């Protein structure tokens, strides 16, 4: 430190916080105690330190007494540290020469006896730490004025459009051949029953048309470097074998292609060609060739029908995958969800009986663009009775503890659609609790009850084709306790619809690793704060929206998407970001260049560089450093220390704490 011992002038400010602190801690005694501590120039107490007059008091002392350290003994630093840092700054003192001593949350509120003694200990510790505080400069770096949106479902689409409308460049990356996501597979949307495609496809078109959006479908982000404001993402563009710039989407190639495969879009209920667009309104309306099924690839050179018939010559079998790098200031992760595979739950007979289907499969059956043209048929006939089983894998410790939040509502929607399409069909809802919490949801529930849907409260134990009576012959029987009566029921039906849990993407872990995000216990990507930071993540500049963060319906997804857009805009429109000041520093004279820091840092902040030196030394990229201190502890020579949390500072605090008896 430049200044000698006596140059350190510490001011201690004890807050009464009304009676919150003063009620338990003897503030006068505490102040007197502080006054006697070394290097303390002044110690005062006041009713509310955070109030205007309280702040003025501190400013005044800094100016008049030339304080160069300030200790505020009050509430938690998580509460008012920013406030008092500002105060110091206004008083002409470096904001980092402030130390907050938490004598409310961690003292006066949790102790009766010994509160004052503890407060003393905490204050003396704060003072000795403050002694070693050093001024820090927080630096600013410019922000790349573009946003990367990962995932082209409804969340990604909405976020991209909003950012683009604000005049910012957007890169929208989608893994599949077309954007649209799960929502494109859905028939109607609850509770308004408007057609999913009708509300979605215009948005998809808008994305394609938007001058500020660069759309990359059939592509995946494979690498991310950099830090908030300055990310560089590497995107792998899989070969389409069709030239996007030439193709007009006339569809002749699909028409002529003789080779078929199961349609992923129709959940395997229908077929598609080897060259295909997943669905008619696909965006971009450019097909892809699936080498798994294209005979040109399988038996080299045979066929090539598409090649022959494409007038534009857009077919290009020699395409190879391309890597593209983009520079963005912020990233929105909207990678969506997977539907749980209910065959895991053997007793429900999913993969065993063809007329036991999942909710998504039913959406396709119901959908006019679906494999049956919107006619609900299984085993070649219209079911006259349908059982809908809720909470399949949701609210179940053996699979997923959480509630998937949408099933109750779409189950009601299904009931409506079935009754609408099949004259006199009976529908049974097997539920545990009906959760219709959203706007217009409860009304929809009532309406369905009115339509003569049967509600059976109970979790079915089995779906079997084992008939125990005449009426059960040739039917599926759902076995379940009617818990409201307390008797076991056997309900024979023609079709069973399972409502499987929405679960985190199978590759959620890889995505988390790729973008340096955390996952919550349920596997979904984790937001920074459940309430106040719903779309921000632990990684500055990265945001997670939609079902990637947890199960939710379309309205909630869109709301999050727009929140994500707002967050990214707020970030890049600022033009620059302030970097965390309490970062790691390397004492080059001590560094032995072992590289331990480089290995251990998950943010890749430290790097070994030996320009001209015999042994390389570590240097910290402060833009990347989060100041977690993992490297400092790992450093075998103690060359690395964390600003504002130096060993000296913490040990000083520790020593002082031990000084005052319990």
């Amino acid at each position, binding site marked *: 430190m430049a200044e000698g011992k006596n140059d350190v002038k510490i001011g201690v400010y004890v807050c009464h916080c009304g009676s919150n602190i003063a009620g338990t801690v003897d503030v006068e005694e505490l102040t007197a105690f502080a006054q006697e501590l070394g290097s303390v120039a002044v110690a005062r107490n006041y009713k509310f330190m955070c109030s205007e007059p309280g702040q003025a008091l501190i400013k005044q002392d800094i100016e008049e007494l030339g304080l160069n350290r300030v200790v505020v003994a009050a509430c938690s630093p998580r509460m008012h540290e920013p406030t008092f840092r500002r105060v110091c700054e206004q008083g002409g003192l470096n904001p980092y020469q402030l130390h907050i001593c938490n004598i409310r949350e961690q003292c006066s509120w949790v102790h009766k006896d010994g509160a004052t003694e503890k407060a003393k200990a905490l204050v003396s510790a704060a003072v000795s730490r403050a002694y070693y505080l050093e001024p820090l400069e927080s630096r600013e770096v410019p922000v790349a004025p573009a946003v990367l949106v990962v995932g082209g479902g409804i969340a990604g689409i909405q976020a991209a459009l909003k950012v683009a409308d604000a005049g910012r460049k957007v890169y929208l990356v989608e893994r599949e051949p077309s954007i649209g996501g799960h929502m494109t597979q859905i028939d109607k949307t609850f509770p308004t029953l408007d057609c999913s495609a009708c509300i979605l496809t215009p948005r998809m078109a808008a994305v394609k048309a938007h001058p500020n959006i660069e759309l990359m479908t059939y592509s995946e982000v494979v690498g991310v470097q950099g830090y908030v404001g300055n990310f560089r993402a590497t995107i792998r563009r899989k070969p389409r074998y069709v030239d996007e710039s030439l193709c007009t989407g006339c569809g002749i190639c699909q028409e002529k292609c003789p080779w078929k495969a199961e349609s992923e879009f129709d959940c395997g209920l229908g077929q598609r060609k080897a060259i295909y667009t997943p669905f008619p309104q696909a965006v971009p309306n450019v097909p892809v060739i699936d080498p798994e099924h294209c005979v040109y690839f399988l038996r080299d050179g045979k066929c090539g029908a598409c090649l022959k018939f494409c007038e534009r010559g857009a077919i290009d079998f020699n395409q190879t995958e391309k890597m593209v790098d983009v520079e963005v200031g912020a990233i929105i992760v909207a990678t969506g969800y997977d539907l749980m595979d209910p065959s895991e739950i053997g007793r429900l007979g999913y993969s065993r009986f063809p007329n036991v289907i999942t909710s998504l499969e039913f959406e396709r059956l119901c959908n006019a663009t679906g494999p049956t043209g919107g006619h609900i048929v299984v085993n070649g006939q219209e079911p006259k009775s349908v059982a809908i089983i809720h909470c399949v894998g949701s609210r179940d410790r053996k699979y997923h503890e959480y509630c998937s939040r949408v099933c109750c509502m779409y189950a009601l929607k299904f009931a409506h659609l079935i009754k609408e399409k099949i004259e006199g069909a009976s529908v049974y809802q097997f539920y545990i609790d009906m959760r219709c919490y959203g706007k217009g949801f409860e009304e929809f529930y009532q309406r369905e009850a009115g339509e003569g849907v049967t509600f059976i409260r109970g979790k079915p134990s089995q779906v079997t084709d084992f008939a125990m009576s005449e009426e059960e012959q040739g039917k599926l029987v759902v076995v379940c306790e009617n818990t409201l009566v307390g008797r076991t029921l056997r309900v024979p039906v023609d079709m069973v619809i399972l409502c499987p849990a929405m679960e985190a993407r199978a590759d959620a872990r890889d995505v988390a690793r790729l973008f340096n995000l955390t996952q919550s216990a349920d596997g979904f990507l984790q937001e920074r704060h459940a309430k106040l930071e719903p779309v921000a993540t632990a990684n500055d500049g990265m945001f997670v929206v939609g079902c990637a963060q947890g199960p939710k319906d379309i309205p909630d997804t869109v709301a999050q998407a727009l929140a994500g857009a707002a967050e990214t805009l707020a970030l890049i429109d600022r033009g620059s970001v302030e970097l965390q000041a309490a970062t790691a520093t390397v004492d080059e004279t001590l560094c032995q260049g072992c590289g331990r820091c480089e290995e251990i840092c998950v943010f890749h902040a430290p790097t070994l560089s030996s320009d001209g030196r015999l042994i390389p030394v570590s240097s910290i990229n402060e833009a990347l450093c989060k100041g977690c*201190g993992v490297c400092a502890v790992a450093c075998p020579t103690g060359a690395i220390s964390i600003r504002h949390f130096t060993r000296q500072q913490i040990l000083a605090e520790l020593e002082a704490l*031990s000084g005052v008896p319990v």
Partner: protein
Amino acid sequence: MNGFEPKIVAFTCNWCSYAAADLAGTSRIHYPSNVRIIRVMCSGMIDPIYVLRAFEAGFDGVLLAGCHIGDCHYISGNMRAEERTAKLRRLLHTLGLEDERLKLEWISAAEGGGFAETIKEYVGQLKQLGPSPLRKEATA
């Protein structure tokens, strides 16, 4: 033990455990005043030196608290802390200190009650254990 009051220092990470201690406060959940909290940014920041020095300085117990595994604000700092604590324990053992004297707990920001419980429990444990051998030396 005739009225022995153990001295405990707790190193808590800023994001979870320190917040938990604050929550205990805002929810007015009382716990023994034997504990002194030092705030660090991450449990991965806690240098073994601190722990050793704490015992040297006569603390009877040291509590290291961080976010639950998977919740670390810095992705994996708490895992580092876990590894180090294991190593540290062996060292303390050779110094003749009981394992219980060094405690590692994951306490999330939501677990105010949990924090208080941990402290109560720990104080009880240490009372059973009696003063740290090193403390006797320190005071002697």
